[in-house]
């Protein structure tokens, strides 16, 4: 697996618009070859910082998407809600797993 993480800084007061833009982008990503899922992380210690994690099957699948026009089209509505350009950091994933829909033991 391969992860592309975009660090984003929101324009003050644009939280609703920014999160809506990410939801819309997620819908478009679902048809991308190699896309495995994403999370939008909002920094708990302040209002403006976000990290958008995009998970891919391989670096090659990510790079094909990143170098296509589809990436720029995907980013445009999100970037309109940012106070500065996003920064991108790429990660290999040596260990993954443990995700649960509910706590261990089946509790609700």
């Amino acid at each position, binding site marked *: 697996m391969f992860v592309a993480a975009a660090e984003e800084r929101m324009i003050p*007061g644009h939280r609703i618009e920014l999160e809506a833009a990410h939801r819309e982008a997620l819908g478009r990503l679902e048809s991308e070859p190699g896309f495995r899922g994403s999370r939008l992380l909002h*920094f*708990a*210690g*302040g*209002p*403006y*910082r976000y990290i958008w994690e995009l998970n891919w099957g391989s670096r090659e699948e990510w790079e094909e998407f990143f170098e296509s026009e589809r990436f720029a089209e995907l980013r445009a509505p999100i970037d309109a809600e940012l106070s500065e350009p996003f920064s991108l950091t790429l990660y290999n994933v040596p260990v993954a797993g443990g995700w649960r829909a509910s706590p261990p033991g089946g509790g609700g």
Partner: protein
Amino acid sequence: MPASPGAGPAPPLFGVQGISRVLREPEEVGRHERAYDALLHRDDCPGMFWNLYLKGLDDPQSSIHMQVWASQRHSEEFGVSPGFQAMRQELSTAPGPRGLMVGPLSPGYWRPLYEQVLEAEPTGCELDGDELGLALHGLTFVRPGSEHAYVDAEREVAAAFAASGGIYAMRCLQNLGHPGAFTWVRHARDPEALDAALARAREAEERRAGLASEETVARYRVWLLSTWPERRGAAS
């Protein structure tokens, strides 16, 4: 704060802090800050517990805004309230930003850890001629693994300060996203009272500061302070 029967635990208190460099004329910024504070006094703002503005002692461009709410929900509801939005719209017509935030945790979200009010804490605003004393403010990043030790060290300093005279109040908060980051403020009647408290707390202060990997500490004028103890009582 004890929860009402059957209502579940009360949500944690929620603090917000912004450290900034003022870009516009300090008088203009001050008028805006007092207008913002006036909104918090309204009856439709029951979740606002205290609101504080600090100004640099010898640097009028240096400003800190701290406030504590009953919960994050109360703070967010105020942010979308008609009164605040109207004020924001009015001010957005002025050219350029009012100030620039300083540092990665500004504005930041904080969990209040403790608060000690030792003497009748003066409230009001410098614009109205109120004398509110001064404050020692710190933003402290501790070495990973030292978080619990730091809170203990903070309490030791607070105990030493409390034994000194002329100390109004002390508050300490921990960042909600960066658990190694703490911010604290200690209010004193005057510089002499603050100096005396620091002398009394010297050893405890050294232990506290020794846990920091990085910190910024400075003295400020208390420019505006509003507190609503009756709202806290209503919330408990």
